[in-house]
């Protein structure tokens, strides 16, 4: 058997990598990982630093006299749990609704070449191009006229809808890679069109559905502008608004702020790690599966 070229080995399965090369690769990846997580670690170290100081020339991740007091204080003295609860149930609800609506819409785009299809896809793309701050005032007026201010209704509708374009793109990309023959054979066996969808396509698209859910979750969880418009009551704040309360005009309780920041990052990170095995396969905007 011909010896594989170095290049081939480098860009493909690492058959016969020399130990030296493996070490180099690991080294590079480790450096990349450190760069990835270092800023987050710094925020963490601010949260456990005593004395409300955001800055320090001490680069240690665990500062002297570290304490978790800030975490306790955020939960105890501020409405932190309320904010998390609000954010959480809104996010879960809207992510689910968004995925459900997008999954059927994407199927329509994927399997039929109906008139207006291309235009529709481009229009979906165009919704991503609108500069968000511009919509603030009209959305405020619209929300007020529809009586949606200070209700959860308005936010649920707004979030669900705003995640649809991107979800459709992801799901459509994934559906495109599922051979149509599968549905054809199911229909020959007597299943209806939509039956084939539910029983064959959807289960196969589980990775992509999970990723669409993840994206919806992330964008709703971190959303700020719409929440600021719709929610004008202290009991109805999501964490993005709540965090602002910890920031004063000049003074900020940095330790509490960082502690809250770390805590609100946790749900999203957990979701990411849980779905990490699907991240790679589900995020196909197109693929070369033959």
């Amino acid at each position: 058997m011909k010896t594989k070229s170095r290049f081939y080995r480098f860009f493909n399965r690492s058959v016969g990598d020399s130990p030296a090369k493996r070490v180099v690769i690991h080294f590079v990846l480790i450096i990349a990982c450190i760069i990835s997580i270092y800023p987050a670690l710094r925020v963490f170290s601010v949260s456990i630093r005593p004395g409300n100081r955001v800055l320090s020339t001490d680069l240690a991740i665990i500062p002297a006299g570290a304490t978790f007091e800030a975490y306790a204080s955020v939960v105890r003295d501020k409405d932190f749990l309320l904010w998390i609860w609000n954010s959480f149930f809104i996010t879960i609800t809207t992510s689910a609704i968004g995925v459900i609506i997008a999954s059927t819409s994407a199927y329509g785009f994927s399997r039929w070449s109906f008139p207006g299809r291309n235009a529709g896809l481009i229009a979906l793309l165009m919704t991503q191009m609108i500069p968000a701050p511009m919509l603030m005032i009209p959305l405020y007026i619209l929300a007020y006229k529809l009586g949606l201010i200070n209700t959860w209704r308005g936010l649920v509708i707004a979030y669900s809808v705003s995640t649809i374009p991107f979800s459709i793109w992801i799901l459509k990309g994934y559906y495109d890679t599922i051979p149509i023959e599968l549905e054809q054979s199911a229909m020959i066996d007597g299943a209806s069109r939509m039956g084939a969808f539910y029983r064959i396509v959807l289960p196969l698209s589980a990775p992509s559905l999970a990723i669409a859910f993840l994206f919806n979750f992330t964008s709703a969880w971190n959303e700020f502008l719409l929440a600021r418009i719709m929610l004008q009551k202290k009991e109805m704040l999501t964490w993005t608004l709540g965090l602002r309360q910890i920031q004063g005009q000049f003074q900020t309780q940095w330790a509490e702020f960082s502690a809250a920041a770390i805590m609100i990052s946790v749900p999203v990170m957990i979701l990411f790690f849980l779905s990490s095995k699907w991240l790679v396969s589900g995020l196909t905007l197109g693929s070369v599966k033959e």
Partner: protein
Amino acid sequence: MKKWVCVFLALAVLAGGLFAKGGVEAPKGPVKIALWTQEGESEGSFQFVKKLADAYTALYPNITFDVLNKETEALRQDFLAASLAGSAPDLVLTVNDHAGPFSVADVIQPVDSLFDLKLYLPSAAAIGSKTWGVPVSSGNHLMLLFNKDMVKTAPKDTDELISVGKTLTTGGKYAIVWNQTEPFWLVPWLGGFGGSVFDKDGVTPTLNTKAMVDTLQFLYDLKSKYAITPKEADYATMDTLFKEGKSAMLINGDWSLGDYSKALGDKLGIAPIPMVSATKKWPAPYTSGKYFMIPKSVTGDTLKAVVAFINFYTNYENQIDMAKTLSRLPALRKATADEYVKNNPVLRGSTSQLVLGTPMPAALEMRCNWDAMKPELNAVLAGTKSAADAAKAMQDAAVACLKTIQ
């Protein structure tokens, strides 16, 4: 003792009520007041607002409050958007320069006819002939703070500041720090050099003056020629440096007094910003405070409730309470003569600076000045522009900005 306190309290409340203009009584029917305030939790002030709102509800159970904190810029933008949509709140407690945009956009009402403004110190939310906000506290002014462990007394003038400063700047420590990024920290010095951002009419910018050039040059020299202050320092940096004992002196405002009192205890010294030796003038920081502004849409019973609440909030007893809790100077004239205000060292130091200050302009045109000064100030301090060029650029920018708001 308790009995006398109760009597005094009752008399104070009564007096406060009697002093209200026109003797406006709280309405009888149920009223819900949505109050937006820029007062934050981290300065302890939001809790204070909430406390007084709750106390008022305890007195008049038919009047309830929904108190919401919004960050300053968010408050301004959201209040304008809400007014346009027709869903403005019922009361706003905020900084004086919001009066400019709000009055021009015709979304708040003047308060001259609703309150007896002579009871208060002059309101910095007065523009032209109308007053748009009822003052709640006086101050929001910058002053010189120093660490008594590092420097025993504050320098009296800038020459002394520089000479003492040189001895203090050693071993990674600095003599003085301030927020180099915000023009708010520039204007006191401008006053010290005899300049002002507006002409006498209060709307024409006068930024390209010798005083401005001297001010910019002075600030640049402090860090480059005399090197007694760091090359770059924003709010967080100056705050940290001072708290860590890495800087002997600091220029910061009355909102930070509570925090520094906690951090430094009686090592904290307060003094006016040193006199400018070249002109023998005291720097004049901008003074304002916090103001209640009433949206235009508020009428009838809600308006009565709002007026009554404002009178309650600014009565003698609550003003002293505010002075004690937040280390802020009262706005009610009678309260400024109180024993506590006169004798408390922090408040006394704050007052000594306040009397040298000048009211912050609230006119809409002031926005143009702030926006014109900021990038030029940064350019001069970064060493990328000369003071003369920057002053001219500031004036051009302010004039151009004024055109766009017409």
